[in-house]
Each structure stands twice: as structure tokens, then as C-alpha cells.
């Protein structure tokens, strides 16, 4: 069992409420996932340009300022950095591939959580309430976000095994369920040049969507194709740079509920995650139908 949540603002004036709304949704899903929590937040960082990398280091006293200096010397730029608990967001105009390979060569303690123009991913073992406090999630602003609370069943309770996973720039997927054809699909996608960091099934779903988007599909088209190409149980909430979507498998045995009003769209594993949101009394509440793509934002 896991809990997933998503929130997307139709009214961009509400962007400064993102952290508070996401926090309350995540904490409400604690019983579905007490072991770890994670979020993907989409926001424009003030003054940032180029790429944002969210980095994680298990070492509590990691020298982030030193990293910044090294990056500045190596790439002849002045990267921005924002440290948040065990994570830091580095903003730089350095080319992404070169940056990644430099990091893997020179900073073995660091793990790249996400890369893109607006996405930031934070995740950590521990209860969702502790996660919200530790990462000061309430303070976040942004256009949309995804969240995941995990009840570990098939692998260890570590940051590495926590969700969400990002594969490709600005793409993120949170998943409740399990895929049964992920091994073969992973091999096929690796043949197409998609890289994976773990053996996790949800990461394969994210990789599949990335591959579809690279082929020129819209998010809605990619998810429609996923219905026939992915085998297993799933409720997905998906974020892209400017899009948000929800999809359930044709059997729909994993829960999902959605709510929409003039200002926002929200999805969650259970309604209680949505019940706290301001404006819910004016929202239409429904259960997403099986094998049906719901998408907002991106065309």
C-alpha cells in the first residue's frame, strides 16, 4: 500500500499556497505510507536560469558551498544553490550531460534526484509529518506538485528506494500499484537510450513516458499508449514542466479520487487528503474511470 497525491493550479495566483496544500495532503496519507515520503515540486526559482539539479547527500555536514565553488571553477559559471535538509538545488547554465558526468566522477557521495527547468524532488525515509517539517515543505511555492508516501513491501526503507522517481528532465511520476512487464520494457527502453537508476517498476513507467515524449507524443498521447504497453496495476499521477495528468489501469483496483474547482485540480489515493484543501466545498469530486486519461496544462 502507498499513498499518492497531486495538485495542479489552474489559477496561477494561488502558487504561493502550494507548500501548505501539498503538506496537508501528504500528512493525511501517512497511514498508507509511514516509511518514507517524497515530493516533486514544479516552480520557477527566482533568478535561476538554465538547469536545476536536485542533489541528495546522506552526509549531514556536506560542504555544499565547496561544491558550488568547484562547479564554478570547472564550468566557468556562478551556480546558484539552495540547501534544504539533506538535499540541495543547484541552478546552473552548465550543459546538463557534462555536469552529470562531472558529478559522478568527482562527487560519488551525491545522488541526482531530478533535473529540469522547474522540477525539484525531495525524498527521505521517515514519517511524512517529519518529512514536511524537515524540508519546510509548507514554504514552497509553485505551479503543481506530486507526492508519495511509501509503505515498504518489496525493498528496503532508504532514501534511494523512496519515491518519486524522475527519469528525464522535468518528468515525474508517482505510482500506486505494481507493474508486471517492467523487466522486458526496461530492456526495450534501454535499447532506445533511456537510462535507469534502479530496478524499480515505477521508474520504468516514468522512463516509458519520457521515451514517448521524446518521440513527440503529448502527455495525453503518451499515457493513452501506456494503457496498452504497461501491464499491471497502477494509479499514476504524472507531472511535466507545465502539465499534470492522472491514469488508472483498466481494472482500477488501486484507489484514486479527484476533485476540481475553478482554481485547482487535486488527486489522491483517498478523499481525506483532499478534504482539507481550501475551496474543496466548491469542487466537483469524482473517481477517475479505468483506462481513461485525465490531463491538464500541456496540450
Amino acid at each position, binding site marked *: 500500500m502507498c499513498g499518492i497525491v497531486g495538485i495542479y493550479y489552474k489559477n496561477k495566483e494561488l502558487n504561493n499556497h502550494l507548500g501548505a496544500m501539498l503538506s496537508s495532503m501528504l500528512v493525511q496519507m501517512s497511514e498508507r505510507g509511514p516509511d518514507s515520503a517524497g515530493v516533486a515540486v514544479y516552480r520557477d526559482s527566482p533568478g535561476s536560469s538554465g538547469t536545476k539539479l536536485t542533489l541528495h547527500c546522506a552526509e549531514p555536514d556536506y560542504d555544499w558551498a565547496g561544491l558550488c565553488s568547484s562547479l564554478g571553477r570547472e564550468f566557468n559559471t556562478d551556480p546558484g544553490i539552495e540547501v534544504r535538509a539533506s538535499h540541495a538545488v543547484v541552478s546552473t547554465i552548465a550543459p546538463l550531460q557534462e555536469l552529470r558526468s562531472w558529478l559522478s566522477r568527482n562527487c560519488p557521495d551525491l545522488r541526482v534526484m531530478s533535473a529540469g527547468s522547474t522540477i525539484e524532488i525531495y525524498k527521505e525515509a521517515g514519517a511524512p509529518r517529519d518529512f514536511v517539517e524537515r524540508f519546510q515543505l509548507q514554504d514552497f511555492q509553485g505551479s503543481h506538485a506530486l507526492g508519495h508516501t511509501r509503505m515498504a513491501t518489496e525493498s528496503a526503507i532508504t532514501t534511494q528506494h523512496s519515491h518519486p522517481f524522475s527519469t528525464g528532465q522535468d518528468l515525474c511520476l508517482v505510482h500506486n500499484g505494481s507493474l508486471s512487464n517492467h523487466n522486458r520494457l526496461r530492456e526495450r527502453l534501454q535499447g532506445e537510450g533511456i537510462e535507469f537508476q534502479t530496478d524499480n517498476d515505477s521508474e520504468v513507467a516514468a522512463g516509458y513516458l519520457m521515451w514517448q515524449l521524446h518521440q513527440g507524443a503529448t502527455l495525453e498521447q503518451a499515457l493513452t499508449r501506456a494503457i496498452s504497453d504497461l501491464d499491471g496495476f497502477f494509479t499514476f499521477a504524472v507531472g511535466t514542466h507545465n502539465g499534470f495528468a492522472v491514469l488508472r489501469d483498466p481494472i482500477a483496483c488501486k484507489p484514486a479520487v479527484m476533485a476540481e474547482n475553478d482554481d485547482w485540480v487535486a488527486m489522491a489515493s483517498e478523499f*481525506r*487528503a483532499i478534504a482539507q484543501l481550501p475551496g474543496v466545498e466548491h469542487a466537483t469530486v469524482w*473517481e477517475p*474511470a479505468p483506462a481513461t486519461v485525465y490531463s491538464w496544462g500541456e496540450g
Partner: protein
Amino acid sequence: MTEFDLSRDSVRALNQGLHDSAEGRWLVSHPDGRHCIAVGLDAPVDVAIKGHVGYYCAGMNKRANITIDGSAGPGVAENIMSGTVRVLGNVSHCAGASGHGGLLVVEGDASARCGISMKGSDIVVAGSVGHMSAFMAQTGRLVVCGDAGDHLGDSIYEAVIYVAGRVGELGADCVEKEMTPEHRQGLADLLSAAGVEADPDSFRRYGSARKLYNFNIDHASDY
């Protein structure tokens, strides 16, 4: 009237209070999607819940009359024994699962597996139902005023299904059957009891072809 605010007191306290009541009216506010509200009642109490509820609301209901002024999560009125449960909004999957008696009325839509394994209860849905509804339904009646999803009545026993709208693919051993005057009258009475306006003549009846039964009365002595 007893008023109970779930933003102040627990679901457990509410359920204990309801179990201790022999009669009377209750108004429950701020359910906010909480699970297991008003479960296991066994007295002719009237309970009105103002808002959306989570899982298993009104489960195992006996004799009580429970109204949810909102939508309900999975398993509303599961294993209902008697009494009435009415939902003014939509319900999630497995509504009225395994119910032995009583009446569940859904004024909106129900999602997948509505009335799964029902054993004698009546379910009236003013909207549509999702896939696999009335799966292995044994006795009782499922009335759908809108459409029914695929695999309706899969492996059904002796329950009766009435659908006014479109039906997706029928489940294994589920077939359309003749709508006799007795069925029409029974349906009219049930719609009236449920307070749902629909023309009984617009419904078609579905039930078991009785070809999947492992048990055959002619071979009773073999078991």
C-alpha cells in the same frame, strides 16, 4: 437530535455513541473523508452525515437509516443486513458488497464492482455503475438507471439485475432475460421505495444462464 462534529471527536466515539443508542436522530458533521463512519449499527436510528466519507461507511448496517450528503469511498454499506443507506453523491468501488438485506440507494454514480457478491440486499443506483458490477451476486436486486460497465454480472448466481441504459460486455454466464409483469411490478415497487424516479418499462433484466453452476440439484446425492 444528537449533533456530532468529527473535527472535534473521534470516529470511534461516534460509533460507540451510535451503538449505545436504541433510537433517535443523529447529525454528523465534518466527516472529511474519514473511514468507518457509522459502522455496525443495530438499532432503528436515523443518521445524517453532512459531507464526503471515506472507506466502509455504514458497513454491516442493521435497521438504521443512514444518509450521506456527499460522496462515499470504497465499500459503502458493505455487508448491509437491513435498514437503508442513501448516498446523495457518487460512490467508489464495491458499494454494497456482500449485502444480505436492506436497501442501498446511490443518487449519483457507482464505480467498479458495485454489488459484488450481494446476498439478498437491494441496490438502486440512479446513475451508472462501473465494470464487474454484481460479480458473483447470489440473491437480491441491482437496479441501474444509467449505464453499466463491462463484465456485468460475471459468474452471477440468482441475483437479478435491471439496467435502463447501455450495458457493456456482459460477464460470463450473465444473459438478458424476459421482463415479466411480476418483474416489472417488483421493480416499480423498489424504485418507489428508493425514491428514485425512473420508468420501469425502460429497464431490461439480466440474470444467470445457470451454466456455470458447480452444484446441480439433480446430483445432490453425489456431494
